[in-house]
């Protein structure tokens, strides 16, 4: 990365789905997903699939570093008639952004009341906390992760806020030391 303090990557095109319900955990496990046992935690399995447990029985599953075909297949099962009655699909057409770089903590301190500093310091590649909070006035799901370029945070945002969130984040990021906008491919390399 050049001198800019921040890198933003648009990860919205990654395949993902959400599900919830009393049967959701068992259903995901039966399909081979690594389901975190505790709410507000996430794991990334060896295939690169992230499973985030948002609450006791709500999950977000995304092909973060791979596993896109499996995720697509599960999505089809979720929306088919064969879905168990106690597993409910949750549409997830989120705007998904990765924020990384040395300016990440300073940026987050302007837009969010959660103390991310220790979370970024402890960020790991394959597991971590899931934070449901508000950033720049918008409810988001945030996950600190250790990426190829160091610690950062991935943020999922309701798509109706996408324009506002993106433009505001750019504005704040520019003031925090400049932004590089990068695009990440499915296996986690940046271009």
């Amino acid at each position, binding site marked *: 990365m050049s001198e800019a303090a921040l890198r933003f990557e648009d990860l919205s095109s990654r395949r993902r789905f959400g599900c919830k*319900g009393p049967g959701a955990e068992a259903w995901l496990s039966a399909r081979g997903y690594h389901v975190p046992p505790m709410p507000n935690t996430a794991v990334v399995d060896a295939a690169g699939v992230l499973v985030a447990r948002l609450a006791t029985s709500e999950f977000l599953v995304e092909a973060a570093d791979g596993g896109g075909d499996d995720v697509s297949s599960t999505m089809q099962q979720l929306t088919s008639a064969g879905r168990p009655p106690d597993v409910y699909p949750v549409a997830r*057409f989120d705007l998904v952004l990765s924020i990384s770089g040395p300016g990440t903590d300073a940026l987050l301190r302007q837009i*969010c009341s959660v103390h991310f500093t220790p979370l970024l310091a402890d960020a790991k590649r394959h597991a971590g906390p899931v934070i449901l909070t508000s950033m720049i*006035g918008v409810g988001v799901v945030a996950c600190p992760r250790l990426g190829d370029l160091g610690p950062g945070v991935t943020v999922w945002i309701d798509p109706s806020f996408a324009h506002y969130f993106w433009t505001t984040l750019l504005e704040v990021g520019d003031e925090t030391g400049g932004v590089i906008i990068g695009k990440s491919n499915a296996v986690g390399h940046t271009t």
Partner: protein
Amino acid sequence: MKRLPPVKGELIDRSRPVQFWFEDLWVQGYRGDTISTALAANGVRVIGRSFKYHRPRGLLSVADHDANAMVQVLGNDRSIPNVRADVTAVQSGWQVSAVNTKGGLAKDRLAILGRLSPFLPVGFYYKAFHSKRWFPRWERMFRSLAGLGEIDGRAARRSTAKRYDFCDVLVIGAGPSGLSAALTAADQGASVLLVEESASLGGSGAYARGGSGEIAERTVTLALAVRSHSRIRVLANTYAAGYYADHWVPLIGPECMIKARAGSVVVAQGAYEQPAVFHGNDLPGVMLASAAQRLMYQYAVAPAGRVVVLTANQQGYAAALDGLAHGIDVCAVLDLREEPGSASGVAVSELIRRGIPVHFGAIPVEAAAGKGGDVGSFVFGLRAAPRRTEYRLDVDGVWMSVGFAPANALLHQASARMEYVRSVEQFVPYSLPAGVFACGKVNGVYPLEERISDGADAGACAAARLGFGTVSTRRLPPPPRECPTHSYPIFPHARGKEFVDFDEDLHVRDLENACQEGFDSSELLKRFSTVGMGPSQGKHSNMNALRILARYRGEGIERLGTTTARPMFHPVPLAHLAGRGFTPERRTALDTEHEALGAVWMPAGNWRRPEYYIVADKSREQAIADEVRAVRNRVGLIDVGTLGKIEAHGPDAAEFLERVYCARFANLKIGMTRYGLMLDEAGIVVDDGVVGRLGEEAWYFTTTTGNSATLFRELGRLATWWGLNVGLVNLTGHYAAFNLAGPAARSVLREHTALDLSDASLPYLGIREALVAGAPCRIMRVGFVGELGYEIHLPAIHAVDVWRSLLATGSRFHIQPFGVEAQRMLRLEKGHIIVGQDTDGVTNALEVDAPWAIRMEKPFFIGQRSLRILAQQPRRQTLVGFTLPPEAPSHPKECHLVIHDGRIAGRVTSVGVSPTLGRCIGLALVEPHLADGKRLHIRIENGAQIEADIARAPFYDPKGDRQRMGDQG
């Protein structure tokens, strides 16, 4: 006043001079000077005019604990009003002027108001200016007189971003106790954020030296340790503006606000020195002893040449010794007490040894003006002297040190409980909420070493509570050796002008008169007299006002209570509060499509929606009317993606909907929809929507645009509270929706779906899931706009393609995209209500003329109990329709009042000129008896009244045939 030779510890940098204008005077100061101190160093004694009487005022606190030093500053790019001169570092090139003058500080034409003071007693404005004829003149006069600084409309816009900060222990105040608290907490392992409103650390430890360097050296040692500690961050020139729940504290720095969250908070904000109240105590040259000490030690300014010190504590003696140390002629020390306190003995002896007269039992009579208008002499009596003997001292300065008031506003905001402690004559916290600690003077501890010890104890406990260290119980401070505050330093004079509140020009008689008029509680006295309501918010006046009130009532202060201390602690620039505001805006998936179609945007809740679409050579009204006609006669397409969209799943989903809506849903057939009205516990209408049943345990329902987020949270709460087996999924932002409506709607839609759209297959109010233009959709046959219509809901990623497909096919039928304004008229023609427009926060379900939507026979729904009660009572209002003749020259607007027998009997909720009907139609909430009549009288903008004919809604297609239009093939 003059600049002294270099003083150890001074804050000014003599190698960097600064020049600026004050009024028409060219002033030189140094880097590090504040505006006030630079003026003082140049002998400027009058720095402002008082608020009401325009009396000349000089420095009182040099700490912004009063509003004497409030100025207008013309800087590089703008003129800034109400700059606090005591605490604002001066910059070269500034043009500084006093606020609140007409004609300049020296020749303020409004000084004449001082002579009119007998006609301007406390609360005079409540008793005068009642004449309707004269009021406009009074209003103009007050508008020109009122206010302090002036806003510069040309000022360039600044963006001051706020940010968050975090720490384990937040210490507010860097005097000796605060420094000690910070060090102890940090030594125990906590991360500490230390906040100090001054530019330098040390508080009174830096300047209240008593003529020796020991106190300052002790303080400097603490400050250096703090600066070098790896776990302490220091924010100087920053003050804590308030205290909010969960240890949230806004910190106001020079450039922006920092929203700090701490694990524990230590309040070490010290105390405000209080003025003695005597005739002439507001003359320039009369100041607090601490102000004189600040000037001498921090800015190397001699406040006067010859002074008298008025005291009632050891701090006054210390100030006298400080004056002597700087070559000032201290001609006497006058002690209000009969004898010195035990802590003052050494200082008294030293002063006497140096030949300074010390008199006990002093009774201040007045400070008298000299030739220049500032103080020239001080007159006093002695209790031991024969009655009416008065003594006069020629002085050019009077230093007052008669007591302190704790800076405990933040503790009050944190819900601390206070008790009045006689041994220190101040309120002291006796109960603090978890995580909040107080130390030092605010905790009633005054001797230096005891403050340091108290601070260490508070810091230790603050850190231990978070797991750093093991101390957990606060130690009680030792009893004071000497009371720092006189119990009643107030000496009324026959000629008045013994100022209690310098900001508001209130003297003793004002407060006594207010009490006599019945405003004899702390809150009433404050509001009637305005004591404590000026820019300094009572820092120098509240306690003396309480003392006067207590004496008037013959009660102890402890029985009176205090007024409520609210944020902000000091005035905060509006730019800091405004900062960068985050105002989220939502857009539908079709936003760029609308932009391309020429949409004119409007806000709808936090969404932006097309109000209408621009048509060349047509006005707004014409374009909207055309959109209405298009829907009525052909086909239109509107983006309704802003609607709340929620799924309910599970075995208890039907039961859940039965409880939250007042219609029946348990008996709704799969594949059908029903209108739902949602109430609160009081029976007030809070939302409405369409509920569709997709399966035995699968439901899909809509909410109003503005309510979706709030409702989803509330529904989730209810589901949890009731313990029902129901899963709620919020699709609002992830799904798009549009309404295809008009006689040709079926013809357009059938080109893109294999779904059988015949009446038999998809009847009115039916819901189906099917592909439309290849996208999975939910199609609801509903009739909000009163025509054959299909509301199509689909994942947002498919919205653009389907929208374009429908428009392309619809072009054969002259399809028209239509916006919110056309939709509002179309639904008004059908008499369909909009919740929040045709209802308000007090409209209950019985008043909206929709009995078919309420099933009182159900076992339970939210609001049912209230409706039963309301049904027994006379109805307060009801919704009616009205029309005006086509030729009516004037039309009402929304919220215009319905008048009956000369009084308000209702209001218009929706109104507009119907293109379909060719006349003005509307809805109004009115007293029920009017609904049975024929006419309404509506008062319009110019006060005129017009007549409208009561008409039963719907105004158009009352039987609903258009919505149920059969398949014509």
